[in-house]
């Protein structure tokens, strides 16, 4: 008890010495992870004679990393000043971080074995936004951690109405209300419908991607690849040599990818139920791995719904609630639900936007400049021109046919993309339409804007065009290829809206 009274949070202090150990360990871990390819080459290609050299290398590297950790430990200190947590750090580059208490989203304790042995705590101080803003105190004494935590929370209960905590959203939503209103749930038939209309092109792309690339880091396989996969389709096609092989592989790939996407979609959305609770939503789904996503109204930055070509025919929608959260919890950021009817979409939107949702009815839609289509087509043309010329030279007529037909489809999709891209502004909302063969609509309240960026390339300057990027705490809304004067107008309007409003963005 006496000890904790001695702790002065206002005086600059370093972390516990255990931090040196932990920083070194972390550095070595990341170094090894990044040099895995090199190590593999050395171990496979190199002979045993090189072992000595490697050992020396490891020792030198280890020493350097340890020295680095020690210096960074001594350069790292923190203290409380007013209502801010201040952290000084940096070995080569001095950085001073100031974190006002009311911007802190959550404070998490973490203890692994090393921490427990030395009875220290790793404290993650989380704020919304980029990773540079997060403070990690790798190892501080338990008493210090407690005191700091209490100090910040005390301040917050006195000065901030609501305590945001990224991790306890589900609890706060459930605590806040008794009524659990079911918005909709998927029946088995609807589930099959969702599975059949899933994005088969994507799983096709993923298959082709796996076919042509060796993946080294299992951790990185996720949404990243899914997004990149679609780009691989034309390249993969071009690489295949004979018609029969193409036909056979095509049928096989289509069949397998169809099956895969149906199965994964059904596994993911099995028993999907969406509830309205208090001022938020809860979405439950999953067959083997049942997951629960929470989305609080105030945290939703952008609400979008979409339909691909197949979903259009089945008239079902997929809805995505893009939420503000820190980088550390990126995996729980977006709450997604599939298989919604138009009525469900309207109901959800009305919950999120209340009467503002009516603005959408008489919003005025603006088109973007046709240079957008031209730019997209030009990009595909560059990609296609080299392989096509090669096919012509080598007289591979069926491949020429394939490339040309694929190119035509892509050109059509570019034109559709341009035609569908529309934006609209009301007094309170900004809306973006998009899609090529399908539809997409995103809605955002104006006061959710964080930051506005207007860009102009040399090619745009000749045409007096600009592109607008509106950053929110979740994703960015892009309005590409609009006239510079229009971009300025929208920018001024949005800035006016943000700067004259006191509404919190979450």
């Amino acid at each position, binding site marked *: 008890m006496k000890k904790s009274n001695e702790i002065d949070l206002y005086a600059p202090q370093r972390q516990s010495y255990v931090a040196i150990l932990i920083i070194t360990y972390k550095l070595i871990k990341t170094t090894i992870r990044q040099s895995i390819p090199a190590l593999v080459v050395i171990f496979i290609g190199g002979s045993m004679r090189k072992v000595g050299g490697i050992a020396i290398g490891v020792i030198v590297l280890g020493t350097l990393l340890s020295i680095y950790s020690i210096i960074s430990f001594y350069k790292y200190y923190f203290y409380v000043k007013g209502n801010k947590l201040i952290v000084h750090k940096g070995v080569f580059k001095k950085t001073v971080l100031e974190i006002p208490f009311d911007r802190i989203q959550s404070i998490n304790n973490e203890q692994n074995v090393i921490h427990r042995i030395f009875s220290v705590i790793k404290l993650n101080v989380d704020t919304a936004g980029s990773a540079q803003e997060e403070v990690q105190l790798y190892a501080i004494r338990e008493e210090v951690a407690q005191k700091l935590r209490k100090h910040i929370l005390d301040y917050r209960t006195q000065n901030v109405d609501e305590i945001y905590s990224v991790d306890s959203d589900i609890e706060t939503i459930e605590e806040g209300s008794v009524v659990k209103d079911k918005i909709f749930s998927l029946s088995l038939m609807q589930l099959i419908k969702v599975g059949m209309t899933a994005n088969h092109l994507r799983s096709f792309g993923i298959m082709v991607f796996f076919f042509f690339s060796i993946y080294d880091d299992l951790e990185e396989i996720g949404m990243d690849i899914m997004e990149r996969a679609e780009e691989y389709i034309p390249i993969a096609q071009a690489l295949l040599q004979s018609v029969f092989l193409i036909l056979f592989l095509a049928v096989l790939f289509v069949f397998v990818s169809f099956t895969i996407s149906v199965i994964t979609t059904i596994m993911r959305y099995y028993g999907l139920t969406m509830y309205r609770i208090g001022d938020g939503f809860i979405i439950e789904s999953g067959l083997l791995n049942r997951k629960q996503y929470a989305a609080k109204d105030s945290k939703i930055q952008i609400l979008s719904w979409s339909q691909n070509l197949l979903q259009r025919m089945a008239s079902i929608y997929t809805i995505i609630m893009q939420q503000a959260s820190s980088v550390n919890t990126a995996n729980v950021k977006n709450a997604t639900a599939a298989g919604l009817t138009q009525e469900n979409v309207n109901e959800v939107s009305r919950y999120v936007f209340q009467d503002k949702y009516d603005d959408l009815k008489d919003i005025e839609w603006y088109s973007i400049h046709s240079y957008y289509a031209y730019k997209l087509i030009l990009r595909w043309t560059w990609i296609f021109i080299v392989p096509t010329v090669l096919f012509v030279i080598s007289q591979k007529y069926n491949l020429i046919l394939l490339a040309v037909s694929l190119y035509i489809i892509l050109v059509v999709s570019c034109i559709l993309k341009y035609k569908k891209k529309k934006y609209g502004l009301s007094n309170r909302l900004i809306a973006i339409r998009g899609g090529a063969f399908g539809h997409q609509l995103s809605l955002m309240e104006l006061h959710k804007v964080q930051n506005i960026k207007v860009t102009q390339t040399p090619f745009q300057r000749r045409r007096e065009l600009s592109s607008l990027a509106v950053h929110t705490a979740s994703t960015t809304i892009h309005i590409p290829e609009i006239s510079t004067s229009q971009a300025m107008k929208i920018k001024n309007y949005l*800035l006016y809206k943000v700067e004259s409003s006191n509404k919190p963005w979450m």
Partner: protein
Amino acid sequence: MRFHNQQVDVGTLPQLSDVIFQGLEKAYLNVLLLRLSLFSLVLIISLVGLYIFQPLEDVLGFGYMAALGMGILYVIWRYIVVVNGFRNKAYALRSKDIVYKTGWLWKSTTTTPFNRVQHISIEQGPVERKWNLSRLRLFTAGGSTSDLSIPGIDHNTAQELKEYIAGKTRIAENEEE
């Protein structure tokens, strides 16, 4: 609580084009040029070395010459880009936001309202310290791609800017309650 929602004529909104921009400190060009010169020196020396010693026999002398020529052209191009890039970097402080524009050929202008600033930091590298320059960074919840980062500000000015903006965000917070 009073609720204001009056009609606004878009034409009367504060225009960003009226703003007078403040260029970066001249000394920052020295920092940029010093960095580029170090890089160029290493590049050119290694290319000249390759040309003189011609380590790979199956590559013709002409190949090394071409590489050296391209290296020199690239360095000249970098100097043009850096100098013009520096001239095009500027910031402007308004009562409710800060504007930063950058880019010579590919231009961009970022505006961050003060009431969205999460926190502010001042950074200083070893080279910048020589000229007493700093980089001011404004963090918003919009993620690292949208954080505003203004290099080449006099260290004292940076401190003042930081205090000014911090004061503004504090006011914005107080108004909320």
